[in-house]
C-alpha cells in the first residue's frame, strides 16, 4: 500500500512538473522580445489551463503530508532554501500572470511580465534543486532531523537546477508550437528546435557532475534503473527534436512532457527503497515504508480519495477537451 501511495505521489508531482512546467516555460519565453501582441498570444495559449495546472503541486504536497508525514517534514525543512525559492517562484508566477493584464498601460504590463519571468526561473530552479538534493542525499541524523542547509550548495544541484530550467523552456516553446495559431507557431517551433541541444547539454552536464559526486554514487540504490531512465530522458529529447523538424508538434509535446516527468521517476527509482538518503549515517536513511503514515491513515485516505481520482482526472480532461486545439481570434482573453 505504501508503494501505491508513493507511486501516486510521484504521479502527482510529475504531472505538476509537466503541466506547471509549460506555464513556467511560457513564462520564461515572455523574456524574448517585448512585442505586446506576442506576449498576449502566449498568455492566451496558457489561459484556461493555468489554474488547473498549479493544483497538481498543492495536491502532491497534500499527498506528501497525508501519506508521508515524516518525509514531508524532513524533506521540506531539509531543503529549506530550495523549497522557499521554488515557492517564491510559484507565488510570483501565480500573481504576475493574473496581475499583468489588469493595468492597461504597457509599462506596467512589461513590469509584471518581468515578475513572471523571474518567478518561472525560480520555480524551475527550485524544483530542480529539490530533485537533485534527493538524489544526492541529505545529512539526516540518527535523531531523524536534517542538520543545516549547506549540503544543497554543490555543483551537481546547481547543474540539475539549470537543467530543469532548460527543460522547462523547451517544454514551453513546444507547447506554444502546438497551441499558437499556425502562422505564429513556426518561429516558436524553430526556437524549440534550437532549445533541444541546450537542454541536452544541460542534462549532460548534470549527469557528469552527478557521476563525479561521491554522495550521488553512494545514494543510488538502483544505479541501473537510474541509467535506464536517464537514457529514456535523452531519447525523449531526441524524439522531440525529430518531431519538431518534421512539424509534428503533438508528438514533440508528448516527448517534452515525458522529458519533464522522467526526472521524477528517475529520482524515485534510483534511490529506491529509500525515500530520503542520509549522507552521514546510512542507518538513518528513511525508506519509503518508514516514511509512510501508519496503515489506518493510508486506508482512510484510500477510501476517501481513490474513488474520487477518476473525477479529478475527468474534470481536468474536460478542461483540456473544451479548450483543445490552436488558439485563434475567438480565444477568450483574461490573463
Amino acid at each position: 500500500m505504501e508503494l501505491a501511495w508513493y507511486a501516486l505521489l510521484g504521479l502527482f508531482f510529475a504531472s505538476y512538473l509537466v503541466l506547471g512546467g509549460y506555464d513556467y516555460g511560457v513564462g520564461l519565453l515572455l523574456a524574448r522580445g517585448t512585442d505586446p501582441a506576442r506576449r498576449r498570444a502566449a498568455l492566451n495559449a496558457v489561459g484556461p489551463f493555468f489554474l488547473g495546472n498549479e493544483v497538481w503541486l498543492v495536491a502532491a504536497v497534500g499527498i506528501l503530508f497525508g501519506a508521508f508525514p515524516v518525509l514531508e517534514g524532513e524533506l521540506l525543512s531539509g531543503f529549506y532554501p530550495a523549497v522557499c525559492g521554488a515557492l517564491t517562484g510559484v507565488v510570483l508566477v501565480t500573481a504576475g500572470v493574473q496581475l499583468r493584464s489588469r493595468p492597461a498601460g504597457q509599462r506596467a504590463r512589461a513590469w509584471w511580465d518581468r515578475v513572471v519571468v523571474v518567478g518561472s526561473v525560480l520555480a524551475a530552479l527550485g524544483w530542480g534543486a529539490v530533485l537533485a538534493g534527493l538524489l544526492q542525499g541529505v545529512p539526516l541524523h540518527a535523531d531523524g532531523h536534517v542538520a543545516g542547509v549547506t549540503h544543497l550548495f554543490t555543483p551537481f544541484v546547481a547543474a540539475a537546477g539549470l537543467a530543469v530550467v532548460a527543460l522547462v523552456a523547451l517544454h514551453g516553446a513546444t507547447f506554444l508550437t502546438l497551441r499558437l495559431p499556425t502562422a505564429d507557431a513556426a518561429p516558436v517551433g524553430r526556437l524549440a528546435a534550437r532549445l533541444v541541444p541546450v537542454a541536452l547539454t544541460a542534462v549532460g552536464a548534470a549527469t557528469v557532475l552527478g557521476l563525479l559526486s561521491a554522495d550521488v554514487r553512494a545514494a543510488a540504490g538502483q544505479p541501473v534503473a537510474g541509467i535506464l531512465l536517464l537514457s529514456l530522458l535523452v531519447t525523449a529529447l531526441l524524439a522531440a527534436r525529430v518531431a519538431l523538424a518534421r512539424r509534428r508538434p503533438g508528438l514533440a509535446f508528448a516527448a517534452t512532457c515525458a522529458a519533464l516527468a522522467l526526472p521524477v521517476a528517475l529520482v524515485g527509482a534510483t534511490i529506491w527503497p529509500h525515500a530520503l538518503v542520509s549522507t552521514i549515517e546510512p542507518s538513518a536513511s528513511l525508506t519509503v515504508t518508514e516514511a509512510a503514515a501508519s496503515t489506518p491513515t493510508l486506508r482512510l485516505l484510500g477510501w476517501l480519495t481513490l474513488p474520487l481520482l477518476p473525477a479529478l482526472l475527468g474534470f481536468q480532461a474536460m478542461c483540456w477537451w473544451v479548450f483543445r486545439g490552436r488558439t485563434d481570434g475567438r480565444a477568450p482573453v483574461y490573463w
Partner: protein
Amino acid sequence: MDTLFLARLQFATTTSIHFLFVAVTLGLVTLLVGLQTASVITNKPVYERLTRFWGQLYVINYVLGIATGIVMEFQFGLNWSGLSRYVGNVFGAPLAIETLVAFFLESTFLGMWIFGWHRLRRGVHLALLWGVAITAYASAFWIMVANSWLQNPVGYEVRDGVAHLTDFSALLDNPTLHMALGHVVTAALLVGGMLMAAVSAWHLLRRTPDFALHRKGLRIGLVTSAVAIFFVQGFGFAQFFAIGDVQPTKFGDDPAAAPLIADWTARFGPGDYTPPALANVGLGFMILIGFTLGLLWLMLPLLWRDWVIRLRVPLWILQFALPLPFVAMILGWIAREVGRQPWAAYGLLPVDQAVSPVSPWLMLASLIGFSLLLGALAVTNWVLLARHAARGAHDPALGRQPDQPPADPRPEPAFA
C-alpha cells in the same frame, strides 16, 4: 533570537494574510452563485452584469489568495516538521483530503468558468460555478477539521511517541468543530455581503451610472450581511460551551484548568501552561465589533422606498464599516490560535517540539521574505479590488466577448 518565536510569528502573519483572502473568496462565491443562478433563471441582464462585475473582483482575490494558500500549505513542512513527525498520521489526513477533493477541483472548475463565458452552454457554465462554491465550502470544512484537531486532539492513540489514527469519525465529531465552522463560514458571508454593500454604496454616493445595478448590489449585500451577522453571533457564543469543556485554559480563570495543568506538569515538566493575554484581548475586541455590526439590522427597514439611499448617511456608514469584519476576523483567529498556546496540538504536542530545527537566521530570512511577499500581495489585492470596483460594471474583462476590443478602461465621468 529564537527560532520558535520567529516561526510562530511567521505562522501568525501568513495565516492572517491568507484569511483576509479566504473570507472574501468564500463570501463572494456564495453571492455569485445566487447572482448567476438568478441570471440563468430570470434572463434579466442586470444579474448577468452583476455576475461579471463581482466575478471579476472575486477572481482577482481568488488567484492572489491561492498564492498565500500555497505558502500556508508548505509552511507546515518548512517550519513545523515536528507536527508532521509526531501527529502527521492524524493531522495530515484532513489536509490531504482538502487538497485532493476540494481545492484541486475548485481551481479546475474556476479556470473553466473564467474562460468558459460565451463558449460553454449557460447551464454548464452555471454548474461550474456551483462546483466552485461547493468545493470551496468542502475546503473550509476539511481545514476546520484539521484546525479543530489541533484545538482538541481526538481519535488517536500514541505509540512510540507518535500519534496514530484510531477513529476518524471522532475527528468529524469534534466538539470544537461544528460551531466554529458555522462561525467562520457565516463570518465569510458577512465579509462578502459587506463588501458588496460598501462598494455599491460608494457608487451610489458618487452617483455613477448604473444606478439600478448598484442599488440591487446594495440590497443584496445589506440583507446578506444582516442575516450573516445574526448567525455569526449565534455560532460565536455557542462555542463557549465546547471550549469550556475541552480547552479550559484558553481564556484563563477557569477552575477546571487547575487539575489539567497539574497533569501537564507531571507529564511534560513544569512550565507556563496559560496562553498569553493576547487571546483574551482578541476575544474582547472581536465581540465588541460583533455587537456593533449587529446594528446592521437597523438599516433593513430603510430598504423600504430606498430610504437607505436617499438618506445617504447609511451609505457613508456602510462604506466606513467595511474594515470592521476583517479586523474582527483576524481578532477571532488570534483568540482561537493564541489561546491554544503553548501547544501545537492541545495537551499533546508543545510548540517547542513541533518547530523545525532550522537556524534562527534562516527562519528570520523566510519570515521577512514571505511577510513582504504576502504583504505585497495583500496590498496589491486591495488596490486592484478598489480600482476595479471603482471602474464600475461598465465593461469588466471577465466574460467579455472574445472578438470585442476592450472599452476605454477609464470609467466614464459621472455628471448625473
